[in-house]
């Protein structure tokens, strides 16, 4: 009944002043559109960083050999991290799911009449799973292959290309690493370049095969550790530290001769940066929304003045202060919400256009849309309140006399 009248009058008034309503709404459209686009940009950047973290694995720790210290002085030679250390971690570590030692060198590799120099990585059968590799063709070697030191190799996705050969056809073929023949049993799926290193350009061989037949050393490049759960990262780190200090015979109080790194650390910094960036963009866009809100207030004040006589008539016929107040508030909120809807569409369009034309990662999240919509309604209430109050407090006699 009354709500119908209030809505009807609000729409009538908006439609009756089409150009004015449109220009007023434009402020909100631009403000909401800017917020949506900017937040989409920021969210896109954040999402990209998160994906990178996921790809690296949020549950991985890397242990590297560090410097050894003798009486507080760093010794010249780097202390080794050995396969024994890996075994000890596997045996005594806490909250660990997998321990994957990595022993690697660049080696001369020959296939047919082609020669390349490529990174050969001796590791265990867990390697693909822990590092999120899929198998493209063939299969991964097993712990059995490792124990019997079989000469089998699994190629990274990029290796066939380096050898200018068709990947699938290479399965079962011989490849020679440092002059030693290996049978190719599998090819890893593509992972894509990650900054400085290309994880697709390497050849995997079983750890013991590499250790005894190719490299002739047990000095590992690193040990990658997968923890049971991302939340147990810290206890796992403490456990690793304890085991390795014991293995290396480090006295209490002496510094570690190894480093444990959380792979995602530097990425969390990047994540924080993109978050700040998002807030900044949204903040700037919000200023334009504020300006749009002031436009709404201005036009509502004009509307109240123009309709003073109408307000007087309505009051004479029995409209209460709150009836009148609601009337103008609904009009302001309707204007703002219409502007908000158009702004959301425009902003989402802008985000899609930026993604298409500039190739920027943008994500229009449903939360951002809901927040923008609610916020435009709040702008309407906030900036509509004062003009509405002014209308409601008008003296009916003076309002009726108004020309």
């Amino acid at each position, binding site marked *: *009944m009354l709500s119908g009248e209030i809505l009807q009058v609000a729409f009538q008034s908006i439609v009756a002043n089409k150009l004015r309503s449109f220009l007023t709404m434009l402020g909100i459209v631009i403000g909401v559109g800017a917020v949506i686009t900017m937040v989409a940009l920021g969210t896109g950047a954040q999402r990209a960083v998160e994906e990178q973290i996921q790809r690296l694995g949020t549950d991985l720790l890397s242990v590297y050999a560090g410097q050894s210290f003798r009486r507080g002085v760093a010794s010249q030679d780097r202390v080794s991290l050995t396969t024994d250390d890996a075994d000890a971690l596997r045996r005594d570590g806490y909250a660990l799911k997998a321990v994957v030692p990595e022993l690697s060198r660049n080696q001369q590799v020959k296939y047919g009449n082609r020669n390349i120099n490529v990174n050969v990585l001796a590791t265990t059968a867990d390697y693909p799973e822990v590092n999120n590799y899929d198998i493209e063709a063939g299969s991964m070697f097993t712990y059995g292959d490792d124990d019997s030191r079989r000469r089998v190799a699994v190629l990274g996705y990029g290796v066939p290309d380096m050898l200018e050969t068709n990947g699938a056809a290479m399965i079962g073929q011989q490849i020679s690493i440092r002059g030693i023949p290996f049978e190719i049993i599998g090819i890893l799926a593509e992972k894509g370049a990650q900054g400085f290193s290309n994880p697709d350009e390497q050849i995997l061989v079983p750890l013991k095969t590499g250790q005894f037949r190719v490299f002739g050393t047990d000095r590992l490049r690193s040990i990658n550790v997968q923890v049971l759960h991302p939340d147990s990262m810290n206890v796992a780190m403490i456990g690793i530290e304890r085991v390795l200090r014991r293995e290396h015979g480090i006295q209490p109080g002496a510094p570690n001769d190894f480093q444990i790194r959380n792979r995602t650390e530097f990425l969390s910094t990047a994540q924080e940066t993109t978050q700040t960036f998002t807030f900044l963009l949204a903040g700037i866009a919000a200023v334009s929304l504020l300006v749009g809100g002031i436009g709404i207030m201005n036009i509502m004040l004009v509307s109240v003045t123009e309709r003073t006589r109408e307000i007087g*008539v*309505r009051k*004479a016929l*029995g*409209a*209460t202060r709150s*009836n009148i107040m609601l009337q103008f508030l609904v009009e302001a909120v309707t204007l703002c919400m219409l502007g908000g809807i158009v702004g959301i569409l425009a902003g989402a369009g802008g985000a899609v256009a930026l993604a298409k034309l500039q190739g920027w990662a943008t994500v229009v999240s449903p939360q951002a849309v809901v927040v923008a919509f609610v916020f435009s309604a709040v702008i309407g209430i906030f900036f509509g309140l004062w003009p509405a109050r002014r209308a409601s407090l008008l003296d009916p006699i003076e309002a009726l006399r108004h020309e």
Partner: protein
Amino acid sequence: MTGQPQAVDFRTGDIPTPDVIILTHKLSRDYHLGSEVVRALRDVSLQIRRNEFTAIMGPSGSGKSTLMNLLGCLDTPTGGEYWLNSQKVSELDDDELARIRNKEIGFVFQTFNLLPRATSLHNVELPLIYAGVKAKARHERAVAVMERVGLGDRMQHKPTELSGGQRQRVAIARALVNNPSILLADEPTGNLDSHTSQEIMEVFEGLHEAGQTIVVITHERDIAAHATRQIHLLDGLVEQDFTTEKTA
């Protein structure tokens, strides 16, 4: 043409008898303009009974509109009591006054005061909207009262599409739609030619015959002649108050 002035014996603390629709007791309205005080209405005491048709007359500035605004609950007095339909309204708050205006009073203005963007039917429905009447009942009542003032064929017209006399009929229909205790009209014929004025006054007469209590402000004697009682104001005081024989 002249009858007896109406007796007014009412003391503060009394309650008016049920047949008295309007009772003012020493009603006054002062306007403060800087240091100067304009006493637009001075201790006006009068009673208007059910089904009286009263004309309020007097020279310009005598306080007619001031009295009308007080009777219509658009304004509040600076002194005295005002009882409407056995309710003491001189002490009500803003929302209660809005309810009284909606339920008890029907206004007809000199300048019609119709909403220009709404159809005449919607204009007539307005008081019912604020009274919270449901759409169907509202429509039926508005149509009925439009037909009663002879505008059954002008429901969907906007005010700008109507003549002055028709506009005033819409305004009268709007004033009547909520069955008010009293119909108040401030110079309802002031913007109309004499022929249309007579037609409008005939509408008022018809309503009066059907039992409606009416108060009309006018300058013109031949308009006032339609009423059954005349109250003459001068400088904010009742100068004359008498019942009349109707002259056709």
